[in-house]
């Protein structure tokens, strides 16, 4: 629809007015069209464009009641599908809760059972009375002190650790 607006040719506004007459009644074409092929072609293009627009509008306007109902149902279904896909599924919540419970149980159970694990020869603290426990501690302290591996109180604890020194030498 590129039409020159030279004084000898019709303007786009004039062509648009001729393509869509104001009252729906075709206007009488100017005599210029009989002489100007370019303006005739330009008017044809305008009319074609207007017809195409009218055809698009008619596709929606011309729908029957059934077609509208079908389109509505299709739209609602599409909206439902979209909403359902975005919402977390109920079983996913269940899996999350179950996993949390299992984690808590896995962490709690071993710590509760560790002191009850039977080791031959090693008594649980509850095996001995309070007095026996005090005696037990005394005997252990005596054993440790007489071996000289009592750590902080021993004078040789102030000396460098010979084992550490050997390991250090191995590295060199």
């Amino acid at each position: 629809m590129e039409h020159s607006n030279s004084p000898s040719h019709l303007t786009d506004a004039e062509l648009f007015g001729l393509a869509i007459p104001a009252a729906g009644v075709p206007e009488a074409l100017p005599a210029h069209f009989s002489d100007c092929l370019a303006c005739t072609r330009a008017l044809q293009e305008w009319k074609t464009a207007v017809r195409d627009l009218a055809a698009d509008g008619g596709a929606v306007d011309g729908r029957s009641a059934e077609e509208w109902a079908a389109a509505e149902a299709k739209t609602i279904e599409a909206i439902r599908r979209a909403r359902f896909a975005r919402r977390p599924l109920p079983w996913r919540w269940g899996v999350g809760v179950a996993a949390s419970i299992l984690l808590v149980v896995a962490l709690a159970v071993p710590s509760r059972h560790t002191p009850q694990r039977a080791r031959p020869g090693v008594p649980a603290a509850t095996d001995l009375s309070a007095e026996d426990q005090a005696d037990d501690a005394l005997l252990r302290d005596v054993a440790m002190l007489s071996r000289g591996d009592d750590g902080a109180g021993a004078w040789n604890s102030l000396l460098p650790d010979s084992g550490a020194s050997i390991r250090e030498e191995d590295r060199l």
Partner: protein
Amino acid sequence: MRALQKTLLAGALAALSVPALAAPDFPEGKWWKRPRLAAEIGLSADQSRDIEKIFVKSRTRLIDLKADLEKKQLALQSSMEDQVADRRTVEKEIEAVENARAELQKARALMILDMKQILKHEQWERLLQMQQEMRERRMMEREGRPEGYRPRDGRPPARPKASRGD
């Protein structure tokens, strides 16, 4: 000269016997009061009672000797931390600590010897073996090896003969 010979002999005996009796293989604590251990070595109620008597007889002395050693250790520690510690004083304190430790070790060794007299030979052997196994298990756990691991064909390693008191 005779005094020196006596001292050397006593020292040699102490070096042989005391570490043997006070070996780390001997169970620590009130082992005769532990039901599982007592059942394992077949300790009777009478034996348990006799061993308890021996312990009670030694308890006061052990408490005193332990306290004495700890006090001497504390004194030495203070001197060692002192910036202007006298060398001679520290030397004496070291000797005092080691003498107190020797006294404690001796008292404990004699108590263990008396307890050993109550047990049958097999019971004593089993007791030492159990302690050895327990020590190895603890070492393995510390090193991160599996609990059922045994170093020699599934059997615990034999204790060196020289380290036993019998």
